[in-house]
């Protein structure tokens, strides 16, 4: 038996004319706030994520850095990115960013996905992959401005962080947020997280980080995973965090304005066919002629 959440705000490859079930939408948007300024890069979140989600990636290699696994994968849904940055004042900073799905309000993956229902967004803002509907086309990878989803080599499906939708659904925080030793990851309603971020930014200003700020990029409608950055003016310092992420114009075109145009064109073609059939009637063809041709051939 399947359980229905009936709180699906967005559903991949689904027209607004036939929307997903969504009447149970009276839910607060949730968010995860990652305060990079107190992250020690311990990878507890990585381990807790894999543990909770029953994932075991390959035991890889050391390639000369602390980052391990070296990249996100179908079985590593979050990884720490380490960057050594020498600031102008001569001080060294070791910037460590937890990378993973940002759970955009306007998710590029969902928009790009051609398979109905393979990607959904719940009323609480979580963007979740329903992998049984995934056709492994990789459009979500191309559509993501943060380069997050990964296609599994084993089953050819796309995977990424679920923001522990199974835990959040029963009222718990995501595994990474719970386990974080220093409290660098917080979880709550998006409004509360924005408020907390404000306090953190103020504290960082007091410690001399004049450009500290919240990373909640509006180009994707804001995100449900946000960062407090000590150098919010230079997000690229944090392993090339995009300064102004947006869904690519190709996808915007294809899945945006092109879609009604295509729909109109489709229905126009359909209608034309119908009128032709009613007005002109079907072409009369001698079915046997075909057979003769076939025989000749």
């Amino acid at each position: 038996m399947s359980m229905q959440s009936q709180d699906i705000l967005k559903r991949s490859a689904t027209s607004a004319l036939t929307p997903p079930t969504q009447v149970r939408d009276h839910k607060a948007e949730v968010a995860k706030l990652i305060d990079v300024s107190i992250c020690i890069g311990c990878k507890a979140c990585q381990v807790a994520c894999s543990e909770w989600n029953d994932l075991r990636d390959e035991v890889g290699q050391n390639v000369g850095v602390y980052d391990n696994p070296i990249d996100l994968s179908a079985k590593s849904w979050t990884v720490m990115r380490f960057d050594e940055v020498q600031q102008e004042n001569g001080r060294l900073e070791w910037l460590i960013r937890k990378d993973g799905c940002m759970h955009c309000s306007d998710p590029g993956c969902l928009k790009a996905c051609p398979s109905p229902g393979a990607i959904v967004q719940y009323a609480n803002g979580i963007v979740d992959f329903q992998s049984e509907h995934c056709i492994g086309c990789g459009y979500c990878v191309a559509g993501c401005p943060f380069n997050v989803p990964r296609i599994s080599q084993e089953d050819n499906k796309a995977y990424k962080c679920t923001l522990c939708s199974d835990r959040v659904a029963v009222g718990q925080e995501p595994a990474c947020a719970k386990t974080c030793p220093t409290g660098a990851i917080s979880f709550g309603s998006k409004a509360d997280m924005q408020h907390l971020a404000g306090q953190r930014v103020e504290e960082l200003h007091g410690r001399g980080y004049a450009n500290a700020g919240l990373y909640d990029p509006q180009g994707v409608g804001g995100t449900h995973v946000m960062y407090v950055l000590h150098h919010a003016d230079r997000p690229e310092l944090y392993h090339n965090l995009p300064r102004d992420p947006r869904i690519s114009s190709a996808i915007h075109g294809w899945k945006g304005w092109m879609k009604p145009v295509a729909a109109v064109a489709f229905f126009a073609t359909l209608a034309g066919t119908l009128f032709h059939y009613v007005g002109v009637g079907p072409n009369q063809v001698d079915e046997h002629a075909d057979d003769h041709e076939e025989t000749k051939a």
Partner: protein
Amino acid sequence: MELGRRQFFKLCTVGVAGATAATLGFAPGVANATQPRQYKLLRARETRNNCTYCSVGCGVLMYSLGDGAKNAKPRIFHIEGDPDHPVSRGSLCPKGAGLVDFIHSEQRLQYPEYRAPGSDKWQRISWEEAIERIARLMKDDRDANFVEKNAAGLTVNRWLTTGMLCSSAASNETGALDWRFTRALGILGMDCQARLCHGPTVAALAPSFGRGAMTNNWVDIKNANVVLVMGGNPAEAHPVGFKWAIEAKIRNGAKLIVVDPRFNRSAAVADLYAPIRAGSDVTFLMGVVNYLIAHDRIQHEYVRAYTNASLLVRDDFSFDEGLFSGYDETKQQYDRSSWAYQLDENGHARRDPTLSHPRCVWNLLKQHVSRYTPEMVTRLCGTPKEDFLEICRLLGDTSAPDKTATFLYALGWTHHTSGVQIIRGAAMIQLLLGNIGMPGGGINALRGHSNIQGYTDLGLLSVRMPGYLNLPSERQPDLATYLAQSTPKALLPGQVNYWQNTEKFFVSLMKSVWGDKATKDNDWGFDWLPKWDVEYDVLRYLELMYEGKVNGYIAQGFNPIAAFPDKNKAVAALSRLKYLVVIDPLVTESSNFWQNHGEANDVNPAEIQTEVFRLPSSCFAEENGSIANSGRWLQWHWAGAAPPAEAWHDGKILGHLFLRLRELYEQEGGANPAPLLNMAWNYSDPEDPAPEEVAREANGYALADLYDPQGNLLAKKGELLRDFSLLRADGSTASFCWIFAGSWTEAGNQMARRDNASDGQGLGSTPGWAWCWPQNRRILYNRASVDPQGKPWDPKRKLIEWNGQRWSGIDVADFAATVAPGSEANPFIMLPEGLGRLFAAGALGDGPFPEHYEPIESPLEHNPLHPKVTFNPTTRLFDNDRKRMGSAAEFPYVATTYSITEMFRHWTKASRLNAIVQPEQFVEIGEQLAAQKGIRAGDTVKVTSMRGFIKAKAVVTKRIATLEIDGKLVDTVGIPCHWGFEGTTRKGFLANTLTPAVGDANSQTPEYKAFLVNIEKV
């Protein structure tokens, strides 16, 4: 059905139309039953436990298959943090978060195994065979080599040819059985991991303050105004405890300072990071003392009232050119008699409260540290002068009575030939700043293993007994002499001097150890205790083994070839044993030391004649019991599943072996069986003692009705003792570990308490959670948090107050409860003068004040402070080890070993989740050294010391700087220590292959943090 071409086209058109419609989002609603993944814990059984790795002691919730039904065999499938736990609050670090993969590691042992002499394989055996054979080997060895009387004819009852390593991750209850087991047999070559990690902590803090433990606790770190992390790296080694340093930053506006050879993950979130050369910490700390005195950044009232600054030192004490008075060059030891106070006719120390007397501690200290100028600090440590001065200023600010600094340190201070003196230096700074006894202050020794505090408390070290009593030596031939030498006399009038009760603790211990067999007439069984001639610490025992003088060794939850210094020497030493018994949940390098693993362990099994037994034991998740975290909290935990396959609990293994040995002695007789036969082993199932019984025994019982002097009944015969104030020296009480008295009382198991309500004052004390020795005091020396008149130094941090009759407050006063403010009694009640010691008198072997000496392997030719005395003059170095020391000419780089966040020692490499996040061995080098050597990130490099080599990947980093030391450029090679030739990670080398077998001069804890290597690209 047959399709014509046209029909086919028609169908195709309809299909394309449908697909287009679907693509445009007009799909039918069949796939709309969307839902998140099912929640996996819904009816799983939840069991509470504590993480088994480090000493933070985080609470964990273990979820097992089945709901408790008899027919379901529980299997733990998920572990997450316990949100109720006051320290961890639901958090777990990457080690704790991966616990489930340790429990189910591919390397978990399933059944007993045996490796015959010269064989290259394991064979499975039964427990009966294993116990029988081991007991036989032990008995034969004991009978052949037991020393009942020494050359002088004195009863010593010692057995030196078999030793045991005890596991500091096992519960206190296993530890208590370990102690009984080894001492009953007369074993002195017994140590636990404390020897290899925090030995110097006890040796330094006990003579400074009275007890050798972390002064405050994890949560209290949040109350600090300055957090100095030096000689430790809590973000990596104690991540969840480090939560409270971050909390101090965020909620208390604290400054976080990190001083370390490497810009580590603690430094990543620090306000100020300063580099330091490994092995130069004494210089740095004495530099701070010099600064504080020179700039008058002292809590004067505290120093005058609560430290020994005003006490006068004997006139014949001196320090000159690197040596204190009394040095005997031939013995390489000091005669410490001049390192003492001037005494008056009553035996009390003379005092000058004005601090003007030239012989008072204050003036001697001032003179001693005057050489440690900021320039000298920069010259020896390589720390930029401005950084050093800024740190001095920040620390100096906490001399204000309402400001505190806390020091967080761990193995970066203990793993040095001057480890004790480094920690002493820190203790002195905190006394000068008035930060001991204060919330948010203290010297927070961050212990290593999850129960290393408990194992230290239980005396699982060569010459220790439970509760910090010393095992009698052969120079203490009778009880009277032992007690006289172990019971200090007050050095000032009116002191609590709590060790005056030594006899009560000792007799109660003997009553617990020997039961009814201990009587006043036989001096409570004093003769049955083994008496030592020298301390059989790990380094000495390794040397004896290397020389072929040891026959048997038991390693319980201990991986000696990975943990001992100089791995190649350790392997050679084990190869000379007749038998080795390894009790462990996992496959370890030590149990497989006889296997050839190529360059990582290049041995020939055929040449190794050691019989090896591998006995599978349970792990934390499969037992009930208590472990003591670094803050001295004894926390009770519960089993969530049974041990796998044929694995047994440690207690069951010890019980079987103990009873079989006893049986053999009853049947056959043999070398003095009395201690073995008289050892109390009174458990309802002696073959498998229940942890609950052992825990109650550790607390202790009244053996007769106990009355106070007014004739009021205090405890009935047979009742559990409510605390150690009830202990008697007349044999009417029994307590295995006197400081644990109060842990399991008539009111129940206090260690299992789970009331996490806070103190109501925002100081984060949770006295109702678990139980803490001594007497549930959460902050040690808290009498010093109020001034002599009882007024808090900081009204916002009021721990205790005098209510007119007794001390009360949110903490239990660390003081005589009814001694009023203004009395003569000083706050450090375990010391005979009651004062924090700036001058350690004769307590330590290498000086009453810290002095900088170079590491045994140093990049410098001479010690710039005193070129004739370059090294610690009391360092013990065996000839075999002296030959294995290298010089800077051949090995030009300073190396230091350490732990990283993802791993716990050599343990988590068996956990897949941890192997994934740190899969392969690496070393870290600075960019300058890398450029010189043509090494790029990811290259394989070979690191060589005089003792061997390792190969690893190179991490090239800006985070390790080239330092200028005494005019010379010095590079550092950083060596994480977590890989080996066993595990789920990629195979690697044991990092201790490189480290020297030389120890701290006082505690013989090995030097792992400063030695010399060379490095080459492979």
